């Protein structure tokens, strides 16, 4: 009798999240790769470990670093818990990003999933901000300079940039006010905002009758228990095991205590901003930091409003879309490093055009070249393949994403002293 009640309330909870029956096509692993669920698990892991870390961490410049040392060295399993927090944070950003890409390519962005697509992008941005605010907390050289460099990018926002910088930092430099701000956002405002958005996100998934699948796949249905639950459990436990193993083997980094007078060489932003930092080496900050991300995200929000005949749940919209996406991926994989090399050794707009302001020579000129080459590329695609607008956007999205990933990789592993190009093993 009692056991029955327990299992029925458990079942009630499960069926709040999942319907009793799901489409067989929607629970195939390669439909979603389980990424949304993994993100939830990673978030939960961070919530739990984060709550523990809060007991020992002190958010002041004088004590932050020592409290991290104390966690690592004195507390039972302290280092292990911090490692879990660190690694699940990294995985969280990666998995959320991959989830975003998966949702786009499987075209699950049109009504009734349009709002959820936008909520999801909000969650992606919050995930990155969460990681970024956490980055400062150890108060070592790595975190101090990464945050200094990354927040300084704000100064290139016209008009409001300087003001935003001083509000976020709470002063001219990264200091005690910055640390307290970041701590409050990291452990309070951002997680609460994310929990709220996640509840909305999951509810919207349920309202849209689950994962987006193509119309012809809707026929066959199976029971959630055990078909879906078993898969979730398997993937969840595997991910948990992976995080634990990595956390046991590799420590979260902790460099020297932060020293505002000495920038390490090179001083790099957090890894997920390295694509932007790399871009900053090639193009004026206003374009790298404002215009390009704005084009990307407004384009993605605009897309489900502008296009009515979306092919929801079909990978890459169509076979042609898939072909164009793969082609675009190869193209950017080859061309992006080429442009980086050209920029490094051959092209020097600011030297060739010395009398013109940098905003033009390093901003408008490369930007115009970039847009022109996008235009030519889309023109060629249009002529050769006669694609629909959706297929063109898929190709363009691929160019943006793959280029950003390539730039990120170059920034992390191929930039050494003074941000010059090196091989990864030379750094």
């Amino acid at each position: 009798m009692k056991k029955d009640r327990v299992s029925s309330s458990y079942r009630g909870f499960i069926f709040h999240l999942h319907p009793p029956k799901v489409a067989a096509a929607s629970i195939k692993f390669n439909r979603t790769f389980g990424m949304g669920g993994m993100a939830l698990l990673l978030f939960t892991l961070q919530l739990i470990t984060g709550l523990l870390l809060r007991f020992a961490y002190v958010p002041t410049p004088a004590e932050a670093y020592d409290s991290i040392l104390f966690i690592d060295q004195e507390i039972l399993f302290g280092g292990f818990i911090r490692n879990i927090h660190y690694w699940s944070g990294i995985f969280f950003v990666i998995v959320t990003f991959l989830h975003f890409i998966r949702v786009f390519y499987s075209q699950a962005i049109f009504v009734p999933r349009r709002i959820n697509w936008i909520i999801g992008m909000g969650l992606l941005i919050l995930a990155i901000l969460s990681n970024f605010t956490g980055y400062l907390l150890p108060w070592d050289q790595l975190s101090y300079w990464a945050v200094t460099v990354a927040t300084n990018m704000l100064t290139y926002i016209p008009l409001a940039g300087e003001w935003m910088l001083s509000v976020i930092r709470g002063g001219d430099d990264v200091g005690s006010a910055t640390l307290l701000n970041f701590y409050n956002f990291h452990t309070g405002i951002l997680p609460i905002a994310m929990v709220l958005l996640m509840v909305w996100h999951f509810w919207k998934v349920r309202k849209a009758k689950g994962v987006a699948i193509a119309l012809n796949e809707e026929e066959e249905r199976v029971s959630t228990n055990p078909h879906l639950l078993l898969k979730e459990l398997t993937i969840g436990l595997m991910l948990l095991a992976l995080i634990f193993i990595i956390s046991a083997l590799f420590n979260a980094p902790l460099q020297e205590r932060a020293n505002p007078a000495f920038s390490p060489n090179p001083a790099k932003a957090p890894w997920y901003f390295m694509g932007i930092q790399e871009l900053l080496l090639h193009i004026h900050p206003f374009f790298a930091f404002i215009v390009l991300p704005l084009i990307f995200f407004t384009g993605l929000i605009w897309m489900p409003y502008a296009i009515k005949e979306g092919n929801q749940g079909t990978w890459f919209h169509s076979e042609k879309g898939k072909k164009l996406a793969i082609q675009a991926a190869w193209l950017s994989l080859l061309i992006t490093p080429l442009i980086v090399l050209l920029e490094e050794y051959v092209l020097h707009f600011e030297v060739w055009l010395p009398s013109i302001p940098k905003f033009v020579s390093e901003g408008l000129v490369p930007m115009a070249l970039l847009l022109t080459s996008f235009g030519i590329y889309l023109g060629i695609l249009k002529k050769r393949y006669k694609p629909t607008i959706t297929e063109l956007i898929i190709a363009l999205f691929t160019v943006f994403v793959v280029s950003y990933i390539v730039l990120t990789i170059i920034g992390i592993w191929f930039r050494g002293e003074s941000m010059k190009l090196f091989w990864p093993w030379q750094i």
Partner: protein
Amino acid sequence: MANIGRRNFVKRLWAALGIIAGAELLIAFSGFFSAKRKPLTSDSQKLVEAGKVSDFQMNSVFPFRSGKFFLVRLSDGGFMAVSLKCTHLGCSVIWNDEKKTFVCPCHASSFDQVGQVISPPAPRALDTYPVIIGEGKVMVDITKSVRRKQFESSQVTYA
């Protein structure tokens, strides 16, 4: 507008109250958020005493890292306090005595002795701090750095 009905009126009243409550919360938030920004001590002039004029050789650069600046003595005897904060992304520049340049470790911007950009990505010359010379002593006012586009002779202080 004239006759919106009692229920609609009450609904709108609730909505308006909700907006006001939200705004109040936002004001309270911004109050707390910016409270720390005011320095706890009085923000009077912060002067750093660098040393006697005769202590500094001509045509050389002296680091004052704790004070956030380099004291530069030009070959004509003039003094400048050049901020060590790179104008690109805010890293601390290093003085390279062989090449006579300030170099930023983050993105390889470099500046000459008076802080002018030699190589980008830095968009403008390094900031300066006002130098005050009195009774044979060099003092630097580090209350607030001074922005500038490029070097001008008016930025140099003579004994």
